[in-house]
């Protein structure tokens, strides 16, 4: 156990976490140069393309230092606020963390919240100043930021570059020398914490865990504490580039278990694995049942594909337990599913995975948060995850919506603009801290629903990209919310309804109508686009009828080209959904998220 080091990496998106991890894998010989592809740990194409980690990954590296053999377990964490619970469990599985900061960018909001999480868990922090090879690197300034933040000395900060390999040996040395070996007792009852799971089509669910106490043996009967289910440990082992089966894993080890589990939702991140014969008394602290934060309808573009969509979603759920869904029907879109997501990125990822992995083109409706409705009669409380299910307004006493604690880190010159944006988004400034002379951390209390609506893009533009954002849910608060409906060709389209604050319902209605006018192609008849509150129309735009769609000449040399062009245009229309008589493109349903 004394030669084991368990560590994770804390970094902001784009700060080079995956590239540096790749270098560690190469230097320790875990992966040969021949096998190396960028972001070796990111399995999904989507992860490589977006340059982000969506799932947690773990890998064991062997490294000899001063004549001793060490096992270094790297737990690579997801890099987005949507997956913060997974991050917290990964952190809880470690004794140390590499804090990777881009020397040309400085510390970002996401980094800080994860760093605090690591400090709370008593992790040893190893600060790494990455991307030192960049001409724009500002080592002194960023080092100062790091020192201010974690109270280390200048010498503790390791200059590095994932690109050139600078500092990799120093990092490995620091991991061994500074991060404490795990503590735990092999003779105590088994206590192992699940920090992630993946789905393998041949082997079922593979759960990743860290042993805190006791020993787990192949073939043993094990119990998952929170779900209460029992399984046989058919196979256990450690994670190299491939699975490496072992007979037993002891305290301090990081490994995997395969036990014939078919459904991802039986394996909950944060759950405790123990043995049937000698169970531990209580579960490891910090388990939470992750709840979806954002809800949206997912519908097939072609109504005939409903059953296929269901099958695809069920398969997707096998390796993404955080996706929840139930059938619903919409007057405009027919049969589909109301889905719960961890956040907006998670929603985008699901939509994209449906498209790529299952070839399902879907319509995603306007996302919303979960509302608590208190009825006048008996003060009955109703949970509404779909605006079209909102009861008759006259029967509602009040509505509550979820709030978040938001942190924005930006340059001081953008403080004003960021504040204006957050206040416009119904935020309330709670704190303002200068991290350095020109970096400011702003804290807000704001409604989660405002993050759903075009917040990220706006933040990016008002700060010219120099703002990072993080949030955590707090509580529900009473809000003056009303339902904004959209009518196309005089028919209400429930999939476009949204609950919005009374104060900006008019402006929002106007903007949505304008956006839809821009996105819905003209058709052979005129299409009114209206926003309504109850029976009252608050905004209207008109999509003029198409009057000319023809080319002047079509002779012998034009026919092939013309036919192919029309075919291509027709193929493009396959992504449109017929709502009443209006053909609405897929992206129009999310139009409200991208208002200017």
């Amino acid at each position, binding site marked *: 156990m004394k030669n084991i080091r368990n560590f994770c990496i804390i970094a902001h998106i784009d700060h080079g976490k995956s590239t540096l991890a790749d270098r560690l894998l190469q230097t320790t010989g875990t992966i040969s140069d021949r096998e190396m592809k960028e972001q070796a740990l990111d399995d999904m194409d989507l992860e490589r393309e977006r340059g982000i980690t969506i799932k947690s990954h773990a890998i064991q590296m062997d490294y000899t230092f001063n004549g001793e053999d060490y096992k270094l377990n790297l737990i690579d964490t997801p890099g987005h606020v949507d997956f913060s619970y997974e991050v917290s469990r990964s952190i809880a599985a470690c004794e140390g963390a590499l804090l990777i900061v881009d020397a040309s960018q400085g510390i970002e909001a996401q980094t800080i919240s994860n760093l605090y999480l690591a400090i709370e868990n008593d992790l040893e922090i190893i600060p790494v100043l990455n991307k030192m090879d960049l001409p724009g690197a500002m080592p002194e300034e960023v080092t100062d930021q790091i020192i201010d933040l974690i109270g280390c000395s200048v010498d503790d900060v390791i200059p590095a570059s994932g690109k050139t390999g600078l500092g990799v040996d120093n990092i490995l040395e620091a991991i061994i020398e500074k991060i404490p070996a795990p503590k735990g007792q092999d003779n105590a009852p088994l206590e192992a914490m699940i920090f992630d799971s993946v789905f393998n089509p041949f082997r079922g669910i593979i759960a990743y865990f860290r042993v805190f106490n006791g020993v787990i043996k192949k073939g043993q009967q094990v119990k998952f504490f929170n779900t209460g289910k029992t399984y046989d440990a058919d196979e256990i082992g450690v994670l190299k580039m491939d699975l490496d089966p072992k007979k037993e894993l002891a305290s301090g080890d990081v490994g995997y278990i395969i036990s014939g589990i078919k459904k991802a939702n039986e394996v909950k991140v944060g759950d405790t694995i123990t043995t049937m014969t000698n169970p531990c008394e209580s579960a490891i602290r910090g388990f939470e049942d992750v709840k979806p934060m954002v809800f949206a309808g997912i519908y097939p573009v072609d109504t005939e594909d409903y059953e296929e969509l269901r099958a695809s979603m069920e398969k997707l759920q096998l390796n993404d337990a955080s996706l929840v869904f139930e059938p619903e029907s919409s007057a405009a879109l027919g049969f589909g599913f109301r889905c719960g997501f961890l956040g907006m990125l998670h929603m985008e990822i699901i939509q994209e995975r449906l498209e790529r992995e299952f070839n399902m083109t879907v319509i995603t409706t306007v996302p919303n948060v979960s509302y608590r409705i208190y009825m006048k009669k008996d003060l009955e409380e109703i949970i509404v995850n779909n605006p079209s299910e909102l009861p008759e307004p006259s029967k509602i006493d009040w509505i509550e919506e979820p709030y978040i604690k938001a942190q924005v880190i930006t340059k001081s010159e953008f403080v004003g603009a960021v504040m204006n944006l957050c206040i416009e988004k119904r935020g309330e400034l709670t704190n303002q801290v200068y991290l350095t002379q020109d970096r400011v951390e702003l804290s807000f209390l704001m409604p989660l629903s405002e993050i759903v609506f075009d917040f990220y893009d706006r933040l990016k533009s008002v700060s010219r990209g120099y703002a990072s954002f993080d949030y955590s849910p707090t509580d529900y608060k009473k809000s003056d919310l009303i339902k904004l409906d959209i009518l196309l060709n005089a028919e209400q389209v429930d999939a476009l309804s949204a609950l919005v604050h009374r104060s900006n319902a008019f402006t929002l209605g106007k903007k949505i109508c304008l956006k839809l006018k821009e996105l819905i192609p003209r058709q052979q008849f005129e299409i009114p686009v209206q926003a309504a509150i109850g029976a009252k129309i608050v905004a209207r735009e008109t999509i003029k009828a198409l009057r000319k*769609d*023809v*080319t002047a*000449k*079509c002779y*012998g*040399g034009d*026919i092939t080209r013309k036919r192919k062009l029309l075919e291509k245009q*027709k193929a493009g229309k396959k992504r449109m959904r017929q709502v009443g008589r209006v053909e609405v493109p897929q992206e129009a349903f999310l139009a409200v998220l991208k208002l200017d």
Partner: protein
Amino acid sequence: MSGIYIHIPFCTKACHYCDFHFSTKLSNKSTLTNAICEEIKLRKKEFSGAFNSIYFGGGTPSLLTLRELEKIMNQIFIYVDSSQIQEVTIEVNPEDITVELLRGYQKLGINRLSIGVQSLDDKILSWMNRNHSSKKAITAINKAQELGIENISVDFIYGVPNFPKRNISNELHQLLNNSPFHISCYHFTIEEKTYFGWLKKQEKLAELTDLKSEEEFKLITQTLEQKGYDHYEISNFSLNGKASKHNTNYWKRQQYVGLGPSAHSYNYPIRKWNISNNAAYIKQLQQGKLNQEQEKLSSIDHFNELIMLGLRTKEGVNIEEALPLIESNQQDKIKLKIQEFIDDKFLAKEGPIISLRKEKWLLSEYVSRELFILN
């Protein structure tokens, strides 16, 4: 019936709207004429059908000398029975027309002229980089008619942006004084690879609003129909039954043989085309070969073309001939679509024939797309 098209890829200068294949390097003209004759020899087997039309298009065929024209025609008539040819058309630019040239054409058996008038507004002509004045255009028509060439077609462009004060009605009436047997009215189109296309990219030129286009289209249609013209295709009007036999062949999906650089040929189920480069074309034929690209039409392609072309014409599409080309479940969907368009007064149906109602002709591609089957 089948047609022969000869592409003459030369112009003295480029019109700003035109993206047809041409070169301003006129020194190649006689070599190219020889190459076309070589092509005819190489493809002699393709001339076994019932040909009724020969069409010299371009580019600017009126840049060919009478000798050059004669050479090509003689070469064709080695393989094709000249007595069966009812229509021999040549596209001419007004500035090229002389009495001598016209007499020469008559001698060669050319019996139809297609004159590129485009507009009778000199400002528009010069904006489009045309090489002639409106006066020249009228003179050209007069000369031809005086010599007894009655079968004259006139090209006219409407929907031109940037000239809000253009008096189309006045221009049309000037043209109609001569009662040409045929008028082609083309909507102004901005093609990507042209000067106007470049202007559009720079956001210095934009198409007319479609409301305005529709207005002009209606004006033209009404004016010409009042004068007895038959509006037989979206852009084409004929008097005294003088619809273009050559172009009608295209729309009826008859066989055609295209000669010269960039020319397309069609004989079901193959469509093929020559290279769009004069030098490369000449080089191939000097080596006694011809590299053509081709596509083989599937029955779905065939169906789509029947729809696309049929809906451009007054004659429409015989749906009982078209539907068997596609699978029965697709047939049902298409029948439903057709019925919707009939109910919406887009399509008219008479027996097995469906045709686009004239007031909807400007939406012909919209309807075609809806009725297309995807491969």
